[in-house]
């Protein structure tokens, strides 16, 4: 057992899969030198043929991976910043993700797309701070947002072994999260299986990615008065609706803490599904990003991103009598 940082577990998952399956290879920008620190040491071990620095051609290298995958390889792509997904969007959601269906199941497209450092990094302004996991969920792409080192490890290995395209976001502010782990004995984690980060009985907080730890701290602080259950979905598509149902059967109150825009974000989907068919004794509440491009200056940046104080206020609100149905 040792204290393992999120990014170390991330890299360990890649190393273990690269060792185990010779058909896997990594393709991305600046991955040999590992600018994002998610591929440190891999080029030394696996060489030029399997750790490939791509030219700055996100559309083409995303489509290249699709072709290689249809031909039997298991490509792993790293997008250096989350918004490169926008550049490659057609190749990801309109080509790779639809290929199995469009060909009537003739071919699988087992590509993994990694985004080490998604969401706000503080001070990176409008074009480097997005967290587009809800867009991918909306497009029906299997998508994971692990919040802990062990989840990052287990979900990345699962993503690589999955026969469909899977996107894995590693939130920028999760990169420093540490856990006591034995990296040689970590299990794979299935897609679509939530983790109860913290048990409670009054309110269910669904928190995504780096917001999980923040929700845990808020819950600890409020513990004397309110018993809060924090659910980490871990994968946003497929979503573990049964885990949400079990938690709401207990609490009947729901707050969603989500790092995507308010309009058509993940929080709206979670709340809609809960309202349609789950036990709720009070109107649910969501804390999200504002519907805005992230402004540069840190003072104003933090006002458009979901914060601990917003979550605290949302929990207090959902507990009020007036909120009851």
């Amino acid at each position, binding site marked *: 057992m040792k204290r393992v940082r999120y990014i170390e577990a991330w890299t360990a998952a890649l190393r273990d899969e690269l060792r185990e399956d010779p058909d896997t290879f990594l393709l991305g920008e600046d991955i040999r030198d590992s600018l994002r620190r998610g591929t440190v040491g891999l080029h030394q071990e696996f060489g030029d043929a399997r750790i490939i620095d791509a030219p700055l051609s996100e559309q*083409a290298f995303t*489509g*290249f991976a699709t072709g290689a995958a*249809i031909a039997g390889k298991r490509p792993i792509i790293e997008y250096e910043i989350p918004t490169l997904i926008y550049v490659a969007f*057609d190749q990801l959601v309109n080509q790779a993700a639809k290929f199995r269906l*469009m060909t009537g199941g003739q071919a699988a497209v087992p590509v993994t797309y990694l985004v080490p450092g998604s969401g706000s990094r503080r001070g990176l302004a409008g074009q480097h701070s997005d967290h587009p996991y809800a867009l991918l969920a909306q497009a029906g792409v299997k998508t994971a947002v692990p919040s802990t080192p062990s989840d990052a490890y287990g979900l990345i290995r699962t993503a690589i072994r999955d026969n469909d395209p899977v996107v894995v976001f590693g939130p920028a502010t999760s990169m420093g999260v540490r856990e006591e782990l034995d990296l040689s004995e970590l299990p794979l984690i299935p897609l679509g299986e939530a983790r109860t980060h913290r048990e409670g009985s009054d309110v269910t907080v669904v928190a995504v990615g780096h917001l999980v730890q923040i929700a845990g701290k808020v819950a600890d602080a409020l513990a004397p008065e309110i018993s809060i259950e924090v659910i980490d979905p871990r994968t946003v598509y497929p979503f573990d609706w049964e885990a949400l149902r079990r938690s709401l059967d207990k609490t009947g109150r729901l707050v969603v803490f989500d790092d995507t825009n308010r309009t058509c974000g993940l929080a709206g989907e979670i709340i809609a599904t809960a309202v349609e068919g789950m036990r709720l004794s009070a109107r649910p509440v969501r804390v999200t990003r504002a519907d805005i491009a992230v402004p540069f200056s840190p003072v104003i940046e933090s006002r458009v991103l979901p914060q601990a104080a917003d979550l605290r206020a949302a929990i207090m609100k959902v507990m009020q009598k007036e909120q009851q149905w």
Partner: protein
Amino acid sequence: MNQHLPGAESAPMIEDLYRSMKRIRLIEETLIGLVAADEVPGSAHFSIGQEAVAVGVCSVLRDSDVITSTHRGHGHVIAKGASAAGVIAELMGKETGPNKGRGGSMHVADLSKGIYGANGMVGGGVPFAVGAAWAAKQDGTEAVAVAFFGDGALQEGILLESMNMASLWGIPVVFVCENNGYAVTLRVEDGVAGSPVARAASFDMPASKHDGMNVVEVREAAERAVAHARAGNGPSYLEFETYRYEGHQSGEESLRLDYRQDAEVQEWRKRDPLLHATSLLAPDIVERIDAEIEEEIAIAVDFARNSPEPSADTATEYMYEGLEPRKVFES
């Protein structure tokens, strides 16, 4: 038309080239009626006039080689070996199509023949060919890939990105441009600056332009490019001047568009690739092949018509492995 036939311009070879072109021509002429009658749902893009490119190029490919195609893909798919009956069934949305009725005209694919599909996005399939050819190279096989695209794709960044990667990494892929003069209604002169051949050459790959109405010339150019790739010498670019006799898509005539004149179409009809091939063959041979193909296509249409529709219960199948998609309405 998947074996490499020896002997340039030998009569049996030209017979095979003609047979394949005739098959495509007759399938598409039949499809025009089937679309109009709504037996083929939606619309389709016909390649009538462009058969020599599909047939000449695919005649030098093997089953283990890969092609990626375009929205105007019926010809490529048939030339690479997909069955006429299967393709027609696919376009009719039948369960017996190679895509089980999930793809239709714009996505018809047959992975067992190395056909990575027609594609609904201009240039969208080009990088698949590069990735597949790279995989073949990594595995030490002799397989190559051909990316078919039109002059419209010369206007898409993804094509230039793909050519750049292919050249950087010495990938055994042939970029085949079917320049039919129009990207939908946009004339190639109004959409493409400079010389595409010079562009391709600037990526340090052999690049040349040929008569795309002459199937023998197409085949010879493809033979050189494919041999270059198989020998480990990397990518090349071939541009074929060709023409589509039909509109961009089915039913276009009802829109009475003004982008090209009938006189131009008639000029190109004089260069019809089937007429050209016919001129190289004895009339009785042409007659025999035509009769064979007519029978084959009649049987194929019957097969497609009599094939079952997909069951409505299977509407959400094939999207994922191991995951049931959420439904329209969850009670």
